[in-house]
């Protein structure tokens, strides 16, 4: 494969794919200008595929670039494969129930899913796109919240869903503190304000890759499960023995989440 890989600075890791050229850009740059620069840069370059990293800045640049260049764009690809007939990309669709396989035309644009495995440190950079001031942002201030980074990097995560209730979410938080892990919730639980959105696990929240994730009272909606790394051991507690979560879990407990949490914390608090 003769690929171009585009990623936001700082370029820390490459995905597990063959890459011939690495192009970096400043994620705080104005993407309208960056997309035009990229189009000019790649206009005379021979390549099969332009692959973009799994972050949001990369996705925006990829989509803008695909509009300018007229290329097909596949977002959030889980896998790329070189076949006899060409390159294919796979992505999850219909809430993760199905996998779509796309045969890619030359010079297609692909963005990788957040959980795409990385391989090694970034090699030599082919080009860095010039920074363009986003003059439409009149002012901005960031309030740092370490919970996202601590949750995404945790080795042990306790998660609560709607079935755990507000009390279950509190208990999960205590369990995380007691066992040295981090806690997270499903989107419905965050929508009920049982935990801040920075603790939401899933495709629209934080993607986690712990060694063990203990899930209480979650149905196992694909939007939640897709936020948990495939290599993680999932232990799930849910009253419904037929819940979807047990199709994705390694260890299942068909019981009331509150009762198990109470016993789990019995000697600790």
């Amino acid at each position, binding site marked *: 494969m003769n690929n171009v890989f585009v990623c936001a600075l700082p370029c820390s890791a490459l995905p597990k794919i063959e890459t011939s050229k690495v192009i970096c850009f400043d994620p705080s740059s104005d993407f309208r200008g960056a*997309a035009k620069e990229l189009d000019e840069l790649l206009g005379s370059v021979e390549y099969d595929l332009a692959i973009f990293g799994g*972050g*949001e800045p990369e996705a*925006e640049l990829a*989509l*803008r670039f695909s*509009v300018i260049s007229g290329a097909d764009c596949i*977002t959030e690809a889980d896998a790329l494969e070189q076949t006899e007939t060409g390159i*294919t990309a796979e992505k999850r*669709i219909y809430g993760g*129930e*199905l*996998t*779509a*396989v*796309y*045969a890619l035309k030359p010079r297609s644009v692909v963005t990788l899913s957040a959980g795409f495995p990385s391989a090694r440190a970034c090699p030599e950079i082919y080009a860095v796109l010039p920074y363009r001031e986003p003059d*439409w*942002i*009149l*002012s*901005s*201030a*960031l*309030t*740092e*919240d370490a919970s*996202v980074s601590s949750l995404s990097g945790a080795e*042990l995560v306790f998660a609560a869903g709607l079935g755990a209730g507000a009390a279950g979410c509190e208990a999960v938080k205590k369990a995380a503190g007691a066992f040295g892990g981090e806690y997270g919730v499903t*989107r419905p639980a965050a*929508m009920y*304000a049982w935990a801040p*959105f*920075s603790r939401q696990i899933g*495709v*629209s929240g934080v993607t986690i890759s712990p*060694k*063990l994730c*203990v899930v209480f009272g979650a149905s196992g*909606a694909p*939007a939640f499960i897709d936020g948990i790394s495939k290599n993680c*051991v999932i*232990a*799930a507690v849910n009253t419904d*023995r037929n819940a979807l979560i*047990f*199709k994705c*879990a*390694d*260890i*299942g*407990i068909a*019981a009331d989440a509150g*009762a*198990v*949490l*109470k*016993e*789990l914390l*019995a000697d600790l608090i």
Partner: protein
Amino acid sequence: MLSILVCFSIIKDYSSAAAEQWLPERVSDCLEDNMPLMPDTYDQTALEVALRLRDDCQKSGEEVVLSALTVGKKEVPRRFSETLFALGYKNVVIMDAPDKAGAIARYAEKNPQHIIMFGIKSSIYSSGSTGIKAAQRLDLPYFGNVGEARRAEGGVIVTASRPDGVVSARLRTPVVLGINNSVCGYLRIPTLKARLEARKKEPEALLMTAGKADILPDKVRVRRQKNSCRMIEGTAKEQAEYLRALIRGEQL
């Protein structure tokens, strides 16, 4: 005066499909079955965020024109278009066009907007790409993961989640906003009186044949799922004890 356009998708509610319908031999039934239609949940959040922004503007007496637009062949449930009119959306537009982003951009060119909102995860195949593509077609900036928007001089102040925290930014309009999780994520319910009034209104239907549709998959297959879940029986105390051992790494 502030003009806000909110784009929404009507999707099939696949969460109502039985687990058996996702088995390989029945999956085509599932995709073609008469699943109930619903507005995408992230788009509903976008519709609510726009209403909250309107409420904020009205405090200072500023006029706000709200429009809601959907592109697609799926029918918009009558009750939903009534809800939008009843909540104060002046225009509800249903477009039939192969190129979603192109159609939205064309509409916004003809009907200039200060703010265009999209739910960030809308659409089954494109994973929320329509908003960014439309922004590029219109040569407008895009600000994603927005949870709240308030009126500010010369534009809007938005609150948006970022990997390292929460950013509050004052943006110049026109701008395209991608709406993610909001503290008030559910679309409000109109009064019965407003709903009855809304029954007199009809959505505007537009047809646009030009443009290229998004790439569709060459094949679709059922995802392989783990099916080796080991069920732990016993009392809650015994199950908790098993979990403790698991957490300590004894069963891993």
